[in-house]
Structures are given as C-alpha cells and as structure tokens.
C-alpha cells in the first residue's frame, strides 16, 4: 500500500500525541511522498489538526503536550519530534498555512519580508526579488504589485490566504502544511487555492487537512483517513475514493457519518 518506488520526504512511525493526559494520536504511521500532496480526511475531532501540527512542532508552544514515536524527515533522517531537535530548525524547513487567514497587521510587503528577515536577509534588492517571486507563485502578484505598502487587512479573505501561502513560500520550505486552508473561503477563492496547491507540487511536498472530501479527491495524490486519533487507512487517493479496503473508510466517504 505504501509506494516504495517513490521517494519519501517524511514518514511518521509509531507517532502518538498527548494533550496532558488525553491521548489525541495513536500509533500513527504515515509516509509523505516527495513533491506530492497527501490529504488527511476524517470526522471532526479525529486528530487531523493535531497530526499536522506535530510536523512543525507547533504543540511546543503550549505546556503539557507530549510526543511519542518518530517523524523522520529525509534525506537527513532527523526525527522532528525528538526533544533534542530545536523546533526553530524544523520551522525553518517546514512552512504552515492555517485554517483562518492570519496575516500580520503589517503591510503586504512586510508580511512576506518577515520570514526572510528572521533568516537574516537584509538587502532590499533580495527582499524585493523574493517578495515578487513568492507573490507570483501564490498567484497574487498582479493584484498586489501596486499596493505592496498597504495593510494586508485590506485584502479579501481569499487574497489574505494566498498572502499567507506566499509568506510560507518565501522562505523556500521543503514541506508545506495546510490546515483546512479553504474552510473560511467562498467557492471561487477555494478553487484558486486548490489550483495553486496543484501547481506547487513541482517544488514542494505538501500535507493538507481537509474537511471536504471532494477537495481531497481533486488535489491529492495520497489520502489518509483518520478516526478517533487513529489512521484507519492510507492509500492512493483514487483507491481510497473508489475502492477502500476498510468498511469504516467506505462508510465515511459514502457519507454515512461525519
């Protein structure tokens, strides 16, 4: 079921996660194929967000959270959730786009420059160049090139989310994490973002949580179905949506629950 022929970018093994005493993830094994989109689906509260946020150690921001097991990132074989690994180093390599667009209360330009400045980029020419490049990749350049100094809050919700994608892209991540990136957007803005994600496959490995099964079917190569903190089934997206191996998966995708 796991593609051996394709190169892996990361893989979780025996990954469990606890909010205090509450176990939210149980023994997850999930491979992420390089430069492809892996989608996580499942009913609300099944642990999709929790799993996604393990990849960039977001849980470290809050007390009493605990990881067990491994998330190995390739090619260097580092265990992301190892206590000895600095989460800052991980976040330098893995970007994230959140459920609700969360631009900084700064200009469009500064929103993207921020991540570069954090990495020590000071030269205006390099900043300008990178900002144009990432806005272009996020399909936002045409709409914003004449208003880079305006507040990011002047943008529409869909544009704000594309700005957040540009912000994540600007720092050249190896992997991008998306947590239901279109759940707050209208259908037109949603389809723009979906096109964008498909286009990004050329350069970056992506893991996307989605509540919307059609979305998973449209944009992902691999799909994992989760329930109650467990990864019930993982396979090629086509397989999951046409001929799932597990009864539970079938009931979920045919809309019998969730």
């Amino acid at each position, binding site marked *: 079921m796991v593609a051996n022929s394709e190169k892996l970018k990361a893989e979780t093994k025996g990954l469990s996660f606890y909010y205090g005493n509450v176990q939210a993830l149980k023994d997850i094994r999930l491979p992420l194929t390089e430069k492809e989109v892996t989608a996580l689906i499942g009913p609300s509260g099944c642990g999709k967000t929790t799993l996604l946020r393990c990849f*960039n150690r*977001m849980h470290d*921001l809050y*007390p009493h959270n605990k990881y067990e097991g491994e998330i190995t990132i390739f090619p260097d074989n580092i265990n992301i959730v190892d206590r000895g690994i600095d989460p*800052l180093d991980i*976040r*330098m390599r893995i*970007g*994230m786009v*959140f459920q*609700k667009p*969360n*631009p*900084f*209360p*700064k200009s469009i330009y500064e929103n993207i420059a*921020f*991540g570069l*400045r*954090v*990495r020590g980029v000071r030269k205006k020419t390099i900043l300008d160049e990178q900002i144009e490049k990432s806005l272009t990749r996020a399909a936002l350049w045409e709409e914003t090139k004449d208003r880079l100094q305006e*507040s990011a*809050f*002047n943008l529409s919700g869909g544009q704000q989310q594309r700005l*957040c994608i540009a*912000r*994540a892209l600007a*720092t050249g991540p190896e992997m991008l994490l998306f947590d239901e990136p279109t759940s707050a957007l209208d259908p037109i803005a949603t389809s723009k973002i979906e096109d964008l994600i498909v286009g990004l496959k050329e350069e970056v490995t992506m893991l996307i949580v989605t509540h919307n099964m059609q979305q998973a079917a449209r944009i992902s190569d691999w799909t994992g179905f989760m329930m109650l903190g467990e990864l019930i089934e993982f396979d090629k997206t086509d397989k999951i949506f046409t001929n799932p191996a597990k009864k539970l998966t079938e009931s979920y995708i045919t809309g019998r629950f969730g």
Partner: protein
Amino acid sequence: MTRATKDKIIEWGITLIALTSVISFLGIAVVLFAQGLPAFNFVGLWDFLTGRGWHPTHVYEPEFGILPLIMGTLWVAAGALIITVPFGVGAAIYISEVARPAVKDVIKPIIELLNSVPSVVMGFIGLLILAPAVMNLFNLPVGLTIFTASVMLALLYMPYVVSIAEDALNAIPMSLREASYAVGANKMETITKVVLPAAFPGVSTAVILGGGQMIGETMIVLMVAGGAAMVPTSFFEPARPMTATIAAEMGETVVGGDHYHALFAIGIVLFVITLILFILVNLIEKKFRREKLW
C-alpha cells in the same frame, strides 16, 4: 408585565445612568469655568500661563504666573513615565508572554496588591524612607524633590499601566503568534516584531492614560515634591505641581477672592490637559482602525 415593557424599562434605566455621567461631567465643567474664568479679569491668559511668579497672597503685588506649577506637573509626570514605561510595559510583556502559569499566579496578585495601597500611604513612605535616602544618596540639602515624587508616582500607577498594557497584549490573538513561530521566528522576534507592534495602540493608550492619572494625582506630590514654586531645571529640585498647589492653598483662600478664582483657573488648565490626552487616545485608536493595522 410583558417582555417588551421590561425591555423598555431596562433601556430607560441604562439611558438614565449614562445621562447622569454626562450631566455630572457638564456640571463639573460649568462650575470650573464659572469659578475659574473670572481670574482672567485680573490676569491675562498669556501672563497666567507663562508668568514665572506665583505669589497669589502677596499683599501689595500679587503675582499669578503658573508656569512654575505647569512645569512642576510636567517634570514630575515625565519622570514618573520614564520609570513606569519600561518597567510597566516590561512587566506586562513578562506576564503575558514569558511567565509560566505558576509564576503568573504569584506575580499578578502582588501587582494587584500594590494597586490597593492608598496614595497617602505611598506619600508617607516617600516622606519617611525615600526622601532621606535621596538626600543622602545624591548629597542634596533636602530629599523632597521631583525625583522623589516621580518614583512614588511611578509605584502608585505601575499596576494601572501593567494591567492595561497586559490587556492590550492579551487581546492579540494566539493565531498571530502562531503565524510568527510558523515562519521560524523565535520568542524574542515574535514579541518585539509581531506582538508589540500589534499591541502598540493599546499599549500607548495605557501609557497616555497612566500619564493623565499622574498629572491629576495630588496626595503624593503634595507630600514629597517639595512645594517650591520655581520652574525646575533638574529632577533633583523641589517643585510645586498644579494639583498640589490647589490642594495646599484652597483651604486658605477667601471665597470669591482673586486667589480663589486663580486656583479654579489652574483647575481649568488641568481639565484641558486631561481633555487633550483623552482626544489623543481616541485619535490613536481611530488612526489604527482606519489603516486597519490591528
């Protein structure tokens, strides 16, 4: 009684309460101006504001220049702000962004406790402990100086500034901090480049409101500022702020006399300063809302 009638009664009640505060405000303003404006029959507004001599009870040549009093107020408040801003805002940042919950649970009550110390007690501590220390430490003839008053004022209003600044920081949504961490920023960068700028309107409001309170404070400056009506040239000189002047002299004036009206005119000046600060706070808020920077 129907629910609609109940609603109406509640609505009227609230309107009445709101009206009471508006009426009190107008009432205070009317009394202040009615008693203060007559001062300008015997001293011109410009001479009043810029005159350097305050000798209101001089038998032959009374002088009504309040520049020393205005400057006294400003020096004391400025000194207090210089102390309060870094410590108060720093403490708010520490409590809201850095401290572990257990530490927070210890620090917050202590700051609230400080808040419940009456200003007269602060003044007393300043008089008994700080003033002699200042005198010895800086080798001064007297310990009752602007510096002494500023330190005690800073202590008195520290909790106030800390708590509004902390509210401003807490109002910044967690999602903004997460956005910063997610692009690889560390805690310091997140605080200084994302959280603080986002909280700037709230924090500066806290500072301005704190400054307004300091300008209006009376008891401490009456007790430890030294009381000399001279335009100060350093923090280690005594001063006679406006509020202290009114409090010290009002009891000895003849109602309706020149001195009496002049003290009310000082009240008008304080009132106008407070009003300007209030408008400033609102302008800051408007500016940031309009530019949608928060």
